């Protein structure tokens, strides 16, 4: 990489919008180019200065209350124009029981697993979300694009110091799109890419730091993404996508059950 290339990617680098090979290429260049390094350092200082010192104006409580009040009033002021409430409509009644049962099951599932979310896991979840978002931005979603698990697995194993479990889940409705290398939790990790209609699921896998612990499935919802995390067989798994929580659970169960 030359100076022109490195400087043209300065901002994408600073804003974590580059993929892993892009980041590594810049790092390599900066290690040997003082001129570029000076510029990068200036920009880093500026960025952290802004984040540290710029005023973040928080909404006054009176404004929050006023908005809540206005929204509440707008509801009572607009009754449903003669349309029967939904629970009195026959179509709703048919689904009512099933939906209620499903909702209760989902809620208790989420409640049961959201208890033990450690701060460490929270931080990692942020990283996972950032990686997922970045992978969606670039054209390089997969390094190996194939639904053949027998191609993806050996490829990942050859690049990593572990061998992630790879299964095509086409029959469950989640076809394998391919595999990619990524960097999380301060180490290179495997990213398995699955599709579901127009949605993309990234499943990050790497050896767990703890010794022999396992962790039942935990769910988090952040920034509009649903994240599932579990530890099994010495591997940490993080699944993320913009699918809803139920679909994510179906995916994770299909993946975990396939092995």
């Amino acid at each position: 990489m030359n100076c022109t290339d490195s400087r043209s990617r300065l901002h994408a680098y600073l804003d974590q919008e580059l993929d892993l090979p892009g980041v590594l290429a810049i790092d390599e260049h900066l290690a040997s180019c003082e001129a570029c390094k000076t510029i990068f350092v200036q920009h880093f200082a500026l960025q952290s200065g802004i984040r540290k010192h710029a005023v973040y104006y928080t909404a006054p409580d009176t404004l929050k209350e006023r908005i809540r009040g206005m929204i509440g009033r707008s509801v009572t002021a607009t009754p449903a124009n003669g349309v029967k409430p939904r629970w009195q409509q026959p179509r709703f009644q048919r689904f009512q029981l099933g939906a209620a049962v499903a909702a209760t099951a989902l809620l208790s599932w989420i409640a049961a697993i959201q208890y033990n979310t450690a701060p460490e896991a929270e931080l990692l979840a942020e990283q996972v979300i950032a990686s997922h978002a970045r992978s969606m931005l670039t054209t390089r979603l997969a390094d190996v694009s194939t639904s053949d698990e027998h191609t993806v697995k050996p490829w990942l194993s050859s690049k990593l110091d572990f061998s992630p479990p790879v299964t095509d889940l086409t029959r469950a409705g989640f076809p394998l799109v391919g595999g990619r290398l990524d960097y999380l939790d301060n180490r290179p990790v495997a990213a398995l890419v699955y599709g579901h209609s127009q949605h993309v699921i990234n499943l990050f896998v790497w050896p767990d730091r703890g010794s022999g612990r396992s962790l039942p499935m935990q769910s988090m919802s952040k920034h509009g993404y649903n994240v599932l995390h579990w530890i099994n067989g010495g591997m940490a798994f993080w699944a993320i996508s913009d699918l809803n929580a139920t679909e994510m659970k179906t995916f994770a169960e299909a993946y975990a059950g396939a092995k």
Partner: protein
Amino acid sequence: MALTRVLAHVSVPGAKPGQQHRSEDQGEALNLDERARVRRFEEVFVVHLDAAYDYAHWLTRDERNAEDVVQEACLRAFKFLDSFHGERGRAWLLAIVRNTYYTWLKRNKAEALSVSFDEETMLANGCELADLESTGTSVDQVLHQQDARRLINGALDQLPEEFREVIVLRELEDMSYKEIAAIAKIPLGTVMSRLARARKLLLQHLQRAQQES
């Protein structure tokens, strides 16, 4: 500020012309139960009120106007809640805040400062990357000074609006390039070039401050 009159013209992301009428025809299918809508609004948008207010404050640079803009933006967001399909609520609300602000600005042109800005002039006046390299002045020192807070906020304040807003969205609201592009309705390439120029201007400003002190 007569915002309410203005709002009929505010566009909302995801709400295409005509969509609103269609949703009324198919009210049964598309409209959620009203109480569920309020609950959804709380979950999706009210949690981002601080972000909305911060962005509005940096746009309007005035408490009172920021409150007005946020309040009206929330009403718009609530009205168009049904066309929100689970994207990031924060980015969606910020886009509405921005639309509301610009509609308000158009109506209050006489009182508002001129925000017209020529990017070409900017290009001609903007320093090249080499300039930063050659000055050799480190902003590090500026940022470690006791009045770093005043300097940084002063530098942000003097930025032309187009540049200030991308910096605020990026550094304070932690929006991705894609989200900034959607909020400010500019191409990804423009997001990047504006961020680059904004940072260049900020660095120049801080270096000048450094030399003066």
